[in-house]
């Protein structure tokens, strides 16, 4: 049934990019919500169709003109219609009660996942206009930070703790779960689980200022072994530069303004104002999903971030051309 509806409703709109994420669940919570959606959808279709059909039938059958005399109130017809209205009201109440029960069941199902022991805990601090993700570990030296792109193991519960550093934001990965607002002063959390490997797009869903439109979050669900490998790589300090340009690039980085805001583990750069760059080379996008992570975009982002994401917090920096090339090589190599 759902497939028929999807085929009818979304062909032109979904075009070649597939189903809308809310209706293409990648995890058990999104799946529960999608089921509840379909229940609502079909009820809505039936109710709307019934009302429209009744209206059309009434209007077509009982036409008159303005000079038609006032229709006298006839007790028998009134009583019949009164029963009809009462039945309609009763059906409405029963349907709503059914929806309340279905809603409660769905809610309980969603919360049951929170009871599971999380395999991974990530503290996501939202700020204008990027996502700071710290992977928690009982052993402090095993913790690591990344930004805007997080990896989670397939089939395991992941606890995402939500904090905000400045204004209200909202963590929304529609393919996996509903959203959770990041409200300063009110920390919260949500539990995710992915059923299959994949790339799930997320966005900030609470208006947070100038670049709210460019605050994307990517969630990569990896098979457990792949996830472990990724996590181990993230825990390691920055790769030692091997080529001459990369070495020069590291010097440029350490002697330039980059160190005022960014951390590269294993080097003197330890500031936490901006995203952690230790493994930025392995990320697919830059500037919270605004542009692809290519050397060209990286150069543009370093020298003129305001033209890519006007109003964002990174200031422009100018470097001599050779230094800039070296810097790009170095940063791209931080995989």
């Amino acid at each position, binding site marked *: 049934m759902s497939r028929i509806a999807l085929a009818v409703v979304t062909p032109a*709109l*979904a*075009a070649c*990019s597939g189903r809308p*994420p*809310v209706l293409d669940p990648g995890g058990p919570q*999104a799946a529960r*919500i999608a089921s*509840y*959606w379909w229940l*609502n959808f079909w009820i809505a279709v039936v109710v709307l169709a019934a*009302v429209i059909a009744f*209206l059309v039938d*009434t*209007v077509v059958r009982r*036409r*008159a*003109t*303005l000079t*038609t005399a*006032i*229709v006298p*109130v006839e007790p028998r*017809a*009134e009583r019949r*219609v*009164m029963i*009809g*209205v009462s039945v*309609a*009201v009763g059906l*409405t109440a029963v349907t*709503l009660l059914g929806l*309340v029960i279905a*809603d409660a069941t*769905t*809610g309980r199902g*969603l919360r049951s996942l929170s009871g599971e022991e999380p395999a991974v805990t990530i503290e996501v601090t939202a700020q*204008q206009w990027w996502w700071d993700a710290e992977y928690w570990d009982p052993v402090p030296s095993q913790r690591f930070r990344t930004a805007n792109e997080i990896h989670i193991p397939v089939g395991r519960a992941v606890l995402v703790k939500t904090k905000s550093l400045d*204004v*209200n934001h*909202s963590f*929304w990965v*529609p393919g996996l*779960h*509903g*959203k*959770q*607002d990041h*409200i*300063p*002063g*009110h920390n919260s959390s949500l539990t995710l689980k992915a059923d299959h490997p994949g790339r799930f797009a997320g*966005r*900030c869903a609470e*208006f947070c200022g*100038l670049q709210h*439109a460019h605050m994307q979050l990517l969630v990569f669900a990896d098979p457990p072994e792949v996830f472990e490998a990724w996590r181990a790589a993230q825990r390691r300090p920055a790769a030692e530069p091997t080529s001459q340009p990369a070495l020069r690039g590291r010097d440029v980085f350490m002697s330039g303004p980059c160190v005022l805001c960014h951390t590269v583990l294993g080097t003197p750069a330890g500031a936490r104002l901006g995203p952690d760059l230790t493994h930025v080379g392995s990320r697919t996008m830059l500037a919270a999903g605004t542009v692809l992570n290519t050397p060209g975009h990286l150069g543009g982002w370093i020298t003129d971030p305001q033209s890519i994401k*006007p*109003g964002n917090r990174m200031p422009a920096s100018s470097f001599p051309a050779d230094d800039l090339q070296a810097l790009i090589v170095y940063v791209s190599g931080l995989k």
Partner: protein
Amino acid sequence: MRRAVDPPHDAVARVELERAWSTPPGFLGWLTSARHTSVATRYIVTAFGFFVLGGVLAALMRLQLARPNLHLIGPDLYNQIFTMHGSTMMFLFAVPIMEAFAIYLVPLMIGTRNVAFPRMNNLGYWIYLIGGILLWTAFLLNVGPDAGWFAYVPLSGPGYSPGKRVDIWAQMITFTEIAALVAAVEVVVTVFKLRCPGMALNRMPIFVWSMLVMAFMVIFAMPAIMVSSTMLAMDRLVDTHFFNPAEGGDALLWQHLFWFFGHPEVYIIFIPATGFVSAIIPTFARRPIFGYPAMVLSLIATGFLGFGLWVHHMFATPLPQLGATFFTVSSMMIAIPSGIQVFCWLATLRLGRVVFRAPLLYALGFIALFVAGGLTGVMQASVPLDLQVHDSYFVVAHFHYVLIGGAVFPLLGALLYWLPKISGRMPNERLGRWGFAVLFIGFNLTFFPMHVLGLGGMPRRVYTYAADTGWATGNLMTSLGAVVLTIGFVLFLANVAWTLRWGPPAGDDPWSASTLEWATSSPPPSYNFAYLPTVDDRDPLWSPTEQPVVTGLRTDVREILITDAIDATPDHRQHLDGGSIWPFLTAVAAGIGVITAIFTPWGVTIGAVLCAITLTGWFWPRVPSGREARRSA
């Protein structure tokens, strides 16, 4: 119904009444007018002006979003545009126009000559106009508010919105809402105390009931936004900490206060629209409304329940789960009284004989669109589903279905229905039908795709989007639909313009309707009725009995009849004051205070002192009015 001849000396009485009640000619007369029909017409014209401005803003947004990654409008201007669009539509169009229809029609429908406080009515309009002009002036000077019409803190607070943009918004909102409160008080007192003899509460037209419920909701909801916007203004201007988490303030306090106002606000807009439909459908079904007691109780229930839903706007914030469940149930339950109203309208049509005219088309279109919008509303009452669609284009689709479908469509039908009464001319039926058809199609083309966009993950309030999101087709369809929608509005406005210029004379009662406004000329004289009517029926003009008229009111001065609040038995005669310049001066005084308060807290003091002066002038007794009292011990 055979028309009886009015009592003798009728011609003389009409001349005297005209002299007592008419507005002096010229600009000063216009400035000082205390006629409810004049003030209401001003409100309607101004509100439609703001509607057009708000629509232009919407067109700009649709232009920017038509294709991915367009650079027509940058983020700063876009944020101002959607803030101004929401603020204009909600504060400067929707509520004022509903109240305007109340101010025009309620005195006529209840059989009296004016509202209870005619000069306060005038005050409300000037406050509204000044507030609206100042907000738009700020926008045109590039200091328009840019934090959304809902201005969530901390984004709208002093830390993250520097400059005066949000201060202007906060002060203007508080200021303009005074006009809404003034009109609401006007409606409540007029409905309770000025009804003609015999019009007990259970004989009032449903339209009047809907305006009464709306007015009560305004009285209890508007204070919430006045308190919260005052708190925001103070956080920004004098360093209070209401919303500053670092000093124990709370960002969620804003949301609670705002939505405590914000949810009733949408019912304040919707309930009068149901009043329009409840006036139009019986006329074009040729029979009284079905289920009058159920309709009244549903209106009252909706009014009460509307105050118990606000947290459903906050489901994504950290909230206790039990609290959320309560609001899910209440948000679903409110569908029942709304459903009862829909079923009663359908029953009225079913039992009657349907006359196909443009106003009825809008009422029928409303039923379909409101049911659709209400169904998506019930969907969002559920927390799990809301957590997916909240703050996405799905919500934008939902509220435009209930606000345009559920309020603007009835409004357009109402304007066509009562245009003959207001202007004395009949609108063009063919243009009316074409306008409806284009509007209905254009509306659905514009807003239906937004449901899919929301399910596709598109958040609200984004100034652009990437090509690989899959949202391009939906956005293009929406933007093209907006063109059709615009054409529909142009056709509607063309009909109004045509009517005012070339419409044939309407006569007193072109629709053979049942309520009292159709018992006087079109447009009504300055005194509304030569003799105030009495009633013994819910549909007086369809009643076979010949009702007595009221005599004994003075015709040389403005005098009205005050009746009992419940059963409308005559109680006493009340002298009403005529036009005055003081309401205008008071509005200007308050405006000076509010504008100064944007920059310094002393603005409050300045405004208070200036208003004290103008209010003293307003209420100081005039030179011998013939009403002096004896000085008795």
